[in-house]
């Protein structure tokens, strides 16, 4: 038999065995479909960076028609909801400390006089700074033109107009769902492959395989190939759910999205391979998998913009494949970019893949000696 045919026969045999084991392993099978579905529902519905209905309290020492108008105008913005009316400031602070409310509006007794004096604030908002997101929402609210002063009865000045491209309704789901493809793939691919390889070592299968003519590279390709397909299935699940439930538009060509996803899947599989050469048990593989997860979620730009991070975090983010895939997937899905516009992230992903495969191959060969 020619070496090339032998290569494909052995790779095929290993891949077929892996698929058979995967099909027999109900729990893993359920995870292939279940993890992306649950994640997209949780993230899609649960994460809303456009903060609304913040529970707030109010203490109104003025109690005039204008002060009541201020309260109702703020409430009409839907950013805050006044659920607590406190008799004094002390009670307002207590409710804030207890966590019953996240913000408190203090209307001073001289409210009416302040209204007439331009340049002085007419009221004060206390904010719970311990929770992320609240402060920004209320600062935005505080800069809202309220037309409560006599001097304000002219048209408000708006020197800059903001136009939100690609997501005009500013829906969080549109920003989250495409990037969620990467997060889910990152989670399942790294852990599945690390476990699939470590399991063989743990159960002693590897010891037998090494004494057969199978080569390390055949073993790796054969074991990873089925997971590329699993990854593409997961991509499809997230994408379909995103379109059906969250009206996420797909502006770029679909095949380019899948091409980018395939590259990312390969990179995460390689990371799983590296982990499998370090971990001795399935439990360790799982822990190391999760260890790579958290920085990926936090630093990849999935939830927080890269621009706001300290320099060191930005460098670290460059190492994470998820960062680059997020650029690709947001580019293709939302901005309708073509892959040739995204060569930067594509090259960085490829570099990661090459480095990870090299490390894995070097470490794997060591184990045979």
């Amino acid at each position, binding site marked *: 038999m020619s070496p090339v045919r032998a290569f494909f026969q*052995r790779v095929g045999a290993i891949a*077929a*065995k892996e698929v058979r084991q995967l099909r027999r392993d109900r729990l893993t099978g359920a995870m292939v479909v279940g993890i992306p579905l649950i994640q997209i529902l949780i993230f899609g519905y649960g994460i809303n960076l456009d903060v609304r209905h913040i529970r707030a309290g109010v203490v109104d020492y003025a109690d005039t028609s204008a002060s009541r108008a201020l309260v109702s105008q703020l409430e009409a913005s839907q950013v805050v909801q006044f659920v607590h009316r406190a008799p004094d400031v002390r009670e307002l602070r207590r409710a804030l400390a207890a966590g019953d409310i996240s913000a408190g509006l203090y209307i001073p007794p001289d409210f009416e006089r302040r209204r007439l004096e331009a340049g002085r604030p007419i009221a004060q908002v206390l904010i719970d700074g311990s929770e992320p997101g609240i402060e920004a929402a209320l600062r935005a609210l505080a800069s809202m033109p309220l037309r409560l002063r006599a001097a304000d009865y002219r048209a408000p000045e708006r020197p800059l107009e903001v136009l939100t491209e690609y997501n005009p309704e500013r829906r969080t789901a549109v920003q989250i769902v495409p990037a969620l493809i990467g997060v889910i793939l990152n989670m399942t691919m790294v852990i599945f492959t690390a476990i699939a390889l470590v399991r063989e070592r743990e159960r*002693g299968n590897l010891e037998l395989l090494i*004494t*057969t003519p199978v080569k390390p590279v055949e073993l790796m390709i054969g074991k990873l190939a089925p997971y590329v397909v699993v990854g593409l299935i997961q991509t499809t699940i997230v994408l379909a759910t995103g379109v059906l439930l969250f009206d996420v538009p797909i502006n770029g060509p679909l095949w380019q999205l899948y091409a980018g996803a395939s590259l990312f899947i390969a990179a995460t599989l390689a990371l799983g391979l590296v982990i499998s050469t370090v971990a001795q048990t399935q439990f360790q593989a799982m822990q190391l998998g999760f260890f790579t997860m958290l920085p990926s979620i936090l630093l990849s730009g999935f939830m927080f913009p890269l621009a706001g991070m300290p320099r060191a975090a930005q460098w670290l983010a460059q190492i994470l494949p998820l960062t680059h895939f997020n650029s690709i997937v947001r580019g293709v899905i939302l901005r309708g970019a073509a892959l040739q516009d995204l060569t930067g992230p594509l090259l960085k992903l490829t570099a990661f893949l090459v480095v990870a495969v090299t490390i894995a191959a070097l470490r794997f060969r060591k184990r045979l*000696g």
Partner: protein
Amino acid sequence: MAESAPDTNGLAVEARDLTRRFGSVLAVDHVSLDIERAHIYGFLGPNGSGKSTTIRMFCGLLRPTSGTVRVLGRDITREPEAVRSKVGYMTQKFSLWDDLTVLENLRFIASIYTLGKRKAQQRIDAVLEEFKLRPLAGRLAAQMSGGQRQRLALAAATLHEPEMLMLDEPTSAVDPQSRRDFWESLFALVARGTTILVSTHYMDEAERCHRLAILDQGRVVAEGEPERLMDELPLQVIEVQAKDVDGARRELHTLPEVRSLAQLGLRLHVLIDQDVPDAAGRVRDTLARAGIAAEVEATRANLEDVFVAATLPGRQSGERSDA
């Protein structure tokens, strides 16, 4: 490339000063031995004596720290691939796939060895028959008994008709009947020309080997045919049968010429230096003086005596206490 030419008439294994260190532990210490083709060669030794490490070096799983080993005429460290297709290895622990059936496991191994469709089918049929696995063909390996799993492991190891089989404690997890059947299979394989290396800690299995190496603390401490090892033991073996075995044991320990005492049920095997005259008489007198009723007679050494005698120097150095 005369050096790499396989030498089909020569030895199956030639090990020279094979040594393996794990950190500061010397697991295998200058092991040199020859294994002839179409023989069953046994490794006998306690746990940690270096049996598994030696076998793993023979099949290319571990690299020797120093020394050389030629398997089927080729240097295993330099040409592992050339050897691998001709060697079958059976690990101590079941290492086929629990979540695959008997047939799926065998088919997988057949494709890994690229046997080709027709040849694979023919070999799978043959091993299913030979190892009585046909009725179990559709069963998951996880659902089989120890003896059945061991038959499957041997079937898989012999599927590609290897010239040499290396079996690492193959019978440690099976019942006596399965052990007997297993050895029948080994003899059938040897009759067809396969060379077999088997490690064990069962004396009866060691006795069935054509040739034997006793390993202790990584060294070969005795080597040869089991019969000769027993005949040529340089110690006298005195068998003592006594009701009060413990008393007899205590009493005999005080004799300076006693090298070792091993208990077999109600019998004691006393190993005494060869140059001691009338060893049986001395034992008899000692016990009589202590008032212990016993039957004492000189007897032929068994393999256990050989084993105990071979591992004696290690005991004297104080590293090992009473067996």
